[in-house]
């Protein structure tokens, strides 16, 4: 099964992925509606795109009181069904990764649905920091965490060294 993979080392923080994602959803360039977010850690010079990695446990899905979140059998994406969603936003609290969102205009939850198997963010990335490839595990999370960890470690070392 293909999965979205993030290679943080290649990210330059240009946010083309956010713009592509927002455009697919709204037809405008409105990054606040993007479900992929580039986290810019300026102090560590780390830029990390982050989105739903379609986890197997899917707490958003189990938490939903009206069963508005289903699984796309082609992509394994967890998908919000707008006509069922009542906008209670319980899923946004349930998700431990912070990748469920709530749209105050439509009163619906929204999340990454992998664009039905052809993710716009991947196509928009100019540096190849996003890939949609066959993987057993979403292993990019490990490298993502490692890079961010190293940044904090470096920062602490510097603090210790300067003190």
């Amino acid at each position, binding site marked *: 099964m293909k999965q979205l993979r993030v290679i943080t080392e290649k990210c330059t923080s240009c946010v083309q992925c956010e713009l592509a994602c927002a455009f697919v959803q709204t*037809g405008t*360039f*409105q990054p*606040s509606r993007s479900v992929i977010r580039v986290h810019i850690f300026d102090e*560590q*010079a780390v*830029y990390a795109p982050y989105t739903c990695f379609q986890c197997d446990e899917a707490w958003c899905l189990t938490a939903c009181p009206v069963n508005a979140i289903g699984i796309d059998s082609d992509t394994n994406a967890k998908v919000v069904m707008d006509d069922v969603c009542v906008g209670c936003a319980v899923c946004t609290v349930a998700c431990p990764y912070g990748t469920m969102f709530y749209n105050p205009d439509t009163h619906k939850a929204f999340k990454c649905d992998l664009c039905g198997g052809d993710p716009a963010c991947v196509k928009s990335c*100019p540096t190849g920091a996003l890939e949609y490839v066959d993987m057993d595990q979403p292993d990019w999370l490990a490298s993502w965490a490692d890079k961010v960890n190293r940044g904090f470690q470096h920062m602490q070392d*510097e603090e210790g060294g300067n003190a």
Partner: protein
Amino acid sequence: MSATNTMHGWTGTVLRVNLTTGAITKEPLNAEWARDYVGGRGLGVKYLSEEMDPSVDPLSPENKMIFATGPLTGTNASCGSRYMVVTKGALTNAITTSNSGGFWGPEMKFAGYDMIILEGKAAQPSYLWIYDDRVELREATHLWGKTVWQTEEALRAELGVPDTIIASIGPAGENLVRFACIMNDLHRAAGRSGVGAVMGSKNLKAIALRGTGGVSLADPQAYLEGQWAMKEKLRQSPVTAEGLPMYGTEVLVNVINEHGALPTRNHQQTVFDEAENISGETLTETRLVANKACFSCTIACGRVSTLPGEASSKYSVTTNPQNWKIAGEGPEYEAAWAMGSECGVGDLDALIKANWLCNDLGMDSISFGASVAAAMELFEKGVVSQDETGIPLEFGSAEALVAMAEKTAYRQGFGDAVAEGSKRMTETLGRPEFFMGVRGQEFAAYEARAIQGMGLGYATSNRGACHLKAYTVAAEILGLPRQMDPRATEEKAEITKIFQDATSTVDATGLCQFLTFGVGLEEMLPQLSAATGVPYTLEELVHIGERIWNLERLWNERAGFTGKDDTLPKRILEEPIPSGPAKGEVNRLGEMLPEYYELRGWDKDGKISEAKKKELGLE
């Protein structure tokens, strides 16, 4: 809602803040002007021309400041990140248009505004907080005195809204350093002509933004096709696909030095024997941490640089960009030149340190470096002694350079003289011939005696000497779009006019000028038309650029400038380059200027003719 909501590309709304009265108003964008001037530099210059008396003191409440985006700012067009600060320059007394990238301009669009117009002067230190349609002028007494990086940290914590984007001034702007800049996203600068001093004179410390809206398109399908085509071209250009991402703008140090065109020791030489030490190659090998892109940029030329603890702490300055544990940014090529070869300093670590200080203290690193270089020549020639300067201001002294960054921003000791810019400083000390610049603004990093067209571009630049108004280096050195002989004066009037007009248009779209290394107006046109719904033609875009250029010139005429100001320092016109590949050259401005005036449709004194005004709709 109002009819303005039918606009695409543009948001259709202008935010006006009177700092004296505290009045905050939102008005519809003038659609006719938007069509004729597009946005950014164009619209900003138009509004300033219509609203303000150009003869006022730039640091008086009567000066206005306009922060202007373009219709492509905030879109996914490659490098659609730019905003322009348009005001009367504190350094130059001329109209200035200072451009910056990062994320601030797009955020202004997402908050719902094409432009912010600031008037008057706040009674106390203040900042502006804009969260979509909520706009508040707040007290900033607790922020006054903080550096740029401290301000961003404190303000973000105070506001508590994630993803808030901030533009602010540092101590240099507060202290009215004539070349203070406005910084956003920590490292991006609306750099030149002293726009930060103008903001400081208005008691405005910062503008914090958070916008959750979007930028809409008139014809999404045509727009998407246009942006893909342009991005594809950028991927194929050696400059935008390889040179800039690999080495940043610093790639130019060795290139320009090899042409004997890297001004050195206040333009006394044009070859720097330590150029390799401060080059993009060395920076990349030894001090680069990462590339950082501005919003929507597929080039990512930004240099995130680092200094090991011992390299950072060896200078005797008390300001240490303290919340920056690993990395800062820069230097860029122009800064590396000004603080490097122009000061004779070949120590890259010193340039990184001084560059960070300029960013954190909010000073233009070009004018700062060039002003220190002029001070160093005053010191070398015995015009000022160590009794006056406090420290040995010797060419090549890394310690002096770094120390002066702090002294200048805080106007301590001799820093108070440097803070006036090199024109005022050299005049005050009786040696105006050591000022290397035009209209009060210091040159950029290209020797006008070795690159003839740049001399004409500098001399006629409306905002004072500037490399960003007609980058003929592209043709004269890099061979883009075609190779021209840098030593020749033939065709330079024509290419300068073409570059000035085209650049004015690019600056009006909200796109970044670096695109022009890979693409031209014809690639930008489909996106601009599809985003706005205005069926622009290529001829119109060129015409718009010419209109903007002439309107700036008219503004300067009203401010008291004449054709007599279209000139270069005596050293550039009369003293031959002493050594190197361009040995023996002077700038032959006199061969180019009359032809340039004629091509422009101006009279022999450089005054815009009535016929030209009529043609451009500037009557």
